[in-house]
């Protein structure tokens, strides 16, 4: 059992370490870093999902899965629940966190907006990976209007 704080600090160092290899990346370099972080998050999300007890996996509906992630995954990973979950009931979900812990170290406000994607990529992958283990293929992206709030958009890919 490791405290959530350890994960947050590790995440910060991890982003710095992975992005350190290209001190001045062009758009290509930046995108590679983001996709590396996203796929790491994906593998971790899958691994977490695989470790859930059997009874957890018997979700009746897709919406139940999303609610589970917004409550249980978020609580365990970030010590808070997602602030809101909205859906169009056609496979698109928007998860809104008003104060995302991994963005908190950056100054609140707009000035660090360009840095934000680096700090969201891993978590997008985490969501995608957990969903994958729970039988749902998706595309997960994140956006920031004003730090430290952010929105994760989950679009379900139909089989």
């Amino acid at each position: 059992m490791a405290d959530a704080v350890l994960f947050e600090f590790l995440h910060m160092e991890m982003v710095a370490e992975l992005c350190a290899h290209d001190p001045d990346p062009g758009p290509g370099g930046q995108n590679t870093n983001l996709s590396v972080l996203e796929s790491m998050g994906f593998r971790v999300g899958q691994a977490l999902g695989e470790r859930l007890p059997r009874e957890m996996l018997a979700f009746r509906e897709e919406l139940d899965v999303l609610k589970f992630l917004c409550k249980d995954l978020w609580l365990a990973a970030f010590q808070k629940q997602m602030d809101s979950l909205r859906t169009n009931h056609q496979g698109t979900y928007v998860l809104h966190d008003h104060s995302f812990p991994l963005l908190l170290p950056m100054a609140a406000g707009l000035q660090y907006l360009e840095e934000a994607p680096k700090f969201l990529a891993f978590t997008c992958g985490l969501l995608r990976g957990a969903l994958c283990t729970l039988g749902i293929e998706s595309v997960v992206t994140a956006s920031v209007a004003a730090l430290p709030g952010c929105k994760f958009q989950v679009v379900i890919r139909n089989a």
Partner: protein
Amino acid sequence: VSNFAGRGGSSFSELFTLTYGALVTQLCKDYENDEDVNKQLDKILFSNFLSRGYNIGVRLIEDFLARSNVGRCHDFRETADVIAKVAFKMYLGITPSITNWSPAGDEFSLILENNPLVDFVELPDNHSSLIYSNLLCGVLRGALEMVQMAVEAKFVQDTLKGDGVTEIRMRFIRRIEDNLPAGEE
């Protein structure tokens, strides 16, 4: 469903260890294709993880002091107790045992049944587990430096390598005094 996160054995509590495992795997992969780096890889990763760990430790100590209400340690023995019984317990959920004190009281070992960073980790074949574990050494160094102690921490046994236990050797180097203006004692 909503009780899941609260239970002691929650699989989500392995988020830290799984993430660290993924990071090590990724970095080994990153360097795989770089001929020059590959020879030095272990050394580079070893020192990178030490400094990343150090950065974590420097922040972690504040969190620890805020949560634990532990007072100032008067000697290295007290420090050892706090590390093993409070800090390890709080962050990793385990309590190492303290053994092998040096006669001078400036070195001791922490013995753990398993490497606490390891959970379902596949260590890349040709890389030493020492790299992997060095993050924890960095954390210990960074944290203790913030409370005025210069220490060295290293893994001398590791279940990751096939040893029977994991043993971290802690050595007190010196007290870090506050800087005094030149000429004053």
